[in-house]
């Protein structure tokens, strides 16, 4: 197994190096694809019971700490997600020329930094890899010569990612202090149960802020919908598919694995954050007509769904229902992997559309399905998967999430208020799922079906072969992970039982089996059997319905007797209108209609319609935070007047203080 880690790290390093050497720069994507495959295989090996892989460095890095690594099953889950996403994203850029060689080199390095985060065995190694990941991703978002809009998105991203780093740094500092200077996760884990409750609570809250920001959970999501649309598509694919999931990994690693869970209000907090992220994420997504921004908001929604699993796991574990807690955590892990697959697919699809039309605005797309059949079919499968439709993978993990919530609501040991919260969250998840269906009917239908709404859309052609292959691969993964959900959940269940600490670990023999503790036989979803039945029924009916004996005639679409025009079709904006109005108290829509008339008549020359929603959290909460931070920065500037002597003096004072107090 060590050779798989070596292959992963080697391939990514070579890919990064190759990108800098002009004659072999074209090899970089291929090498990085190989690295992705190795990472996925490494993840599978860890999941298949290959046992943890440890590597201890004897030398101290920077004279400070060893960069120890420890890959276990939990790392394996996220390595698998990373591997699949990295493989497809790297494949999709095969044969293209990067904007700059430095950016091309940064991409595999960014992938490698995420592998390192997943393997870090101590606080220092974790933060080192984490910061590397943050900086490289920031470089990839803005590029080397960014435009003004990109700079603004990039700054916000850099600022917020450092808020996250700061919170994690302080959380680690608290843990280091509580363990008398230990840096190892293992040492923290051993000491965690005996720490004072207040210390544990502080660590939890800081970890939630830090990892939640990286994951894009509400209300710390503001960077996400801005950064993703400006990044190149293969970068947004990996950032949205994997990097935000590294935040989820951190949360599980620190809060559940290292701290061993906590009081039930920890779980409730995560449940509330998850429900808010899920519902508001999908509502905001529905209101977007920029395809990549829409997908970015969907990432917030899916992070919310993952958090529902983590939250219910924490509540259940706090009240001793560890078997069910492991199930709820399995839901979160499974959804993390699934989201990595279909979100990478959808972003690559958006990239293909962007490549073919130079457009991201849904209201100018349409009819691309005929020109881009592979993209359209793959995107459609990804859309169905993210909407949680059987028999695809998104449904399987949402089903498990529902079971985790229902289990929380039905466990007598859980206090009634928490039971009710879990029950209400079932409603929130159902609302999220239904709105996601609406949103992806919009995204798929307006982009690929009907008539083209612009000349660019009418002139589009299918995307490049490697990108097609990448999307087809991911679409196949959606089907395989959906039908094979039983096998996958078995493997993930073993991991979550270890993380939750179910002793002894119970082997799970049936596909996905859930039994509420009160009574009754288990609730089941026979993914393979049910899914196959569904597919057979579809195939049979296609034969039956599609094979009419009579000749098919093509006629004009009915438009009340006038010749059909693209402008008659519903647009993305009009498609979402009923939902915009239904949820107007949350979305606070504003619209502006400007009509210009022929002079002296009531015949309009032109009508301009503009409709916008208010992102309450960003427009109200963040403006305050922004103003406050500007004011603080002005105060801080007095300390920072540019004189090098003064800075050296600060250093001397800092060393003095350390000598006085820390020695």
């Amino acid at each position, binding site marked *: 197994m060590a050779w798989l880690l070596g292959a992963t790290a080697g391939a990514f390093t070579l890919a990064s190096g190759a990108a800098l050497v002009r004659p072999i720069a074209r090899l970089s994507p291929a090498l990085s694809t190989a690295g992705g495959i190795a990472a996925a295989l490494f993840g599978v090996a860890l999941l298949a019971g290959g046992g943890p892989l440890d590597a201890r460095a004897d030398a101290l890095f920077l004279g400070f700490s060893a960069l120890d690594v420890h890959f276990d099953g939990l790392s394996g889950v996220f390595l698998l997600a990373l591997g699949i996403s990295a493989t497809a994203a790297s494949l999709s850029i095969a044969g293209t020329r990067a904007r700059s060689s430095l950016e091309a080199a940064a991409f595999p390095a960014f992938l490698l930094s995420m592998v390192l985060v997943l393997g870090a065995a101590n606080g220092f190694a974790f933060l080192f890899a984490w910061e590397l990941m943050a900086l490289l991703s920031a470089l990839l978002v803005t590029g080397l010569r960014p435009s003004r809009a990109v700079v603004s998105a990039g700054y916000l991203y850099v600022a917020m990612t450092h808020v996250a780093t700061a919170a994690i740094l302080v959380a680690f500092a608290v843990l280091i202090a509580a363990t008398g200077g230990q840096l190892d996760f293992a040492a923290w884990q051993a000491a965690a149960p005996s720490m004072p409750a207040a210390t544990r609570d502080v660590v939890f809250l800081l970890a939630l802020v830090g990892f939640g920001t990286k994951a894009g959970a509400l209300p710390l999501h503001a960077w996400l919908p801005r950064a993703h649309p400006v990044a190149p598509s293969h970068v947004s694919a990996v950032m949205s598919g994997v990097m935000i999931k590294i935040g989820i990994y951190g949360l599980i690693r620190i809060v559940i694995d290292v701290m061993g869970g906590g009081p039930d209000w920890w779980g409730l907090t995560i449940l509330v954050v998850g429900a808010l992220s899920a519902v508001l994420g999908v509502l905001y997504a529905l209101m977007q007509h920029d395809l990549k921004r829409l997908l970015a908001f969907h990432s917030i929604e899916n992070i919310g769904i993952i958090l529902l699993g983590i939250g219910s796991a924490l509540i259940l574990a706090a009240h001793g229902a560890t078997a069910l807690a492991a199930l709820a955590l399995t839901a979160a892990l499974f959804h993390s992997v699934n989201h990595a697959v279909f979100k990478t697919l959808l972003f690559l699809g958006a990239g293909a559309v962007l490549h073919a039309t130079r457009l991201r605005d849904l209201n100018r797309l349409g009819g691309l399905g005929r020109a881009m059949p592979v993209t359209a079919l793959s995107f459609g499968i990804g859309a169905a998967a993210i909407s949680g439709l059987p028999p695809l993978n998104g449904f399987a993990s949402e089903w498990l999430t529902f079971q985790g919530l229902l289990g929380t609501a039905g466990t007598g040991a859980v206090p009634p208020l928490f039971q009710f919260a879990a029950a209400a969250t079932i409603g929130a998840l159902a609302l999220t799922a239904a709105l996601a269906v609406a949103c992806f009917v919009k995204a798929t239908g307006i982009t690929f079906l009907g008539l083209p709404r612009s000349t660019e859309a009418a002139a589009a052609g299918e995307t490049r072969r490697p990108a097609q292959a990448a999307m087809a691969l991911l679409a196949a993964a959606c089907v395989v992970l959906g039908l094979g959900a039983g096998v996958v959940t078995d493997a993930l269940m073993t991991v979550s039982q270890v993380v939750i600490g179910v002793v002894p670990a119970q082997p799970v023999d049936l596909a996905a089996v859930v039994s509420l503790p009160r009574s009754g*036989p288990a609730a089941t979803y026979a993914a393979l059997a049910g899914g196959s039945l569904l597919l057979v029924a579809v195939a049979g009916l296609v034969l039956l319905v599609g094979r009419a004996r009579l000749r098919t005639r093509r006629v004009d679409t009915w438009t009340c007797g006038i010749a059909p025009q693209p402008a008659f079709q519903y647009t993305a904006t009009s498609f979402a209108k009923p939902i915009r109005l239904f949820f107007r108290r949350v979305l606070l829509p504003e619209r502006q209609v400007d009509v210009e008339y022929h002079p002296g008549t009531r015949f309009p020359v032109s009508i301009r319609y503009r409709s916008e929603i208010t992102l309450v959290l960003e427009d109200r909460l963040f403006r305050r935070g922004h103003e406050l931070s500007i004011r603080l920065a002005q105060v801080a500037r007095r300390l920072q007047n540019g004189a090098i002597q003064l800075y050296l003096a600060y250093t001397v004072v800092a060393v003095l203080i350390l000598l006085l107090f820390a020695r």
Partner: protein
Amino acid sequence: MSTTVVTTLVLVVLQLATFLLFAPLLAATIRRTKARLQSRRGAALVQPYRDLAKWWGKAPLVGGPAGRVARLAPAVVLAALVTASLLIPFAAVRPPLNGWGDLFVVVGLLALARFALALAALDAGSAFGGMGASRDMAISSLAEPGLVLALAGAALAAGSSNLATISAFGSQQGLGLLGPAHLLAAAAFGIILVAETGHQPVDNPDTHLELTMVHEGMLLEASGRSLATLVFGSELKLVLLAALFAAAFLPFGAATEIAPGPLLVGTIVGLGKLLLVGQILALLDASVAKMRILALPDLIGAASLLALAGLGMQLLLTP
């Protein structure tokens, strides 16, 4: 073949035959009652069958840019609904495909049917398709939480989200089932049933007035076998939701053991329940005006709140 496989096969065939043959008749009885309430004679009860047969034999017309999606979607819609119908207990307290999927799988399959239908509606590039799809998506977004919460209430009471468990629990409780939690959840499901099957006051199933269509708007460009499949699908969906309602909230009369006698009784009682639900819908159609679409959140949102109140009651009253 082992006996369980034979039993499953027999139950599958029985339930498919009952549902598929009965679905158009249920639609016919609703239309008949509605006509009588409006002092008309109404069409014969075999009319829906005649319509389906007529469309099945007609040459399909394909509108403008419509392509593969419009051609294949009807099959996906009907396949999802047929699969779902095998997961719902009807004649017996256990569904034909016992253990293949629980209430969340049924809800997921309904969502799949909706997804495919809405995409098909957008394929021809018609304004009415977009209008219907957009409205249908909005309405079912509101309806789905109510549907899931109502069923989750029944699942909490029974201790499992398996419909067989829920149904068996209900029929074993007898009249003791009719507690406040149960009634609130049943009321919520009732509202959702109206909304999801497109009856008044949410949608008018008989309208072809362009500006008010929801479900019909999505079918406007369909013809020939596609139209027959989609219309039959919507008739089947009504049977399916009514059977789901009966299984979760009125499971009386369903066979608790698999034997010819009880199954026959269960089928007859089950059909009776479906007809009853149909008559209530007909009464609503004839007596209630269609609501403004913007007022729908008040009605359908109320279903979610009712169901949530039911869940609260359930937690409150459980020892």
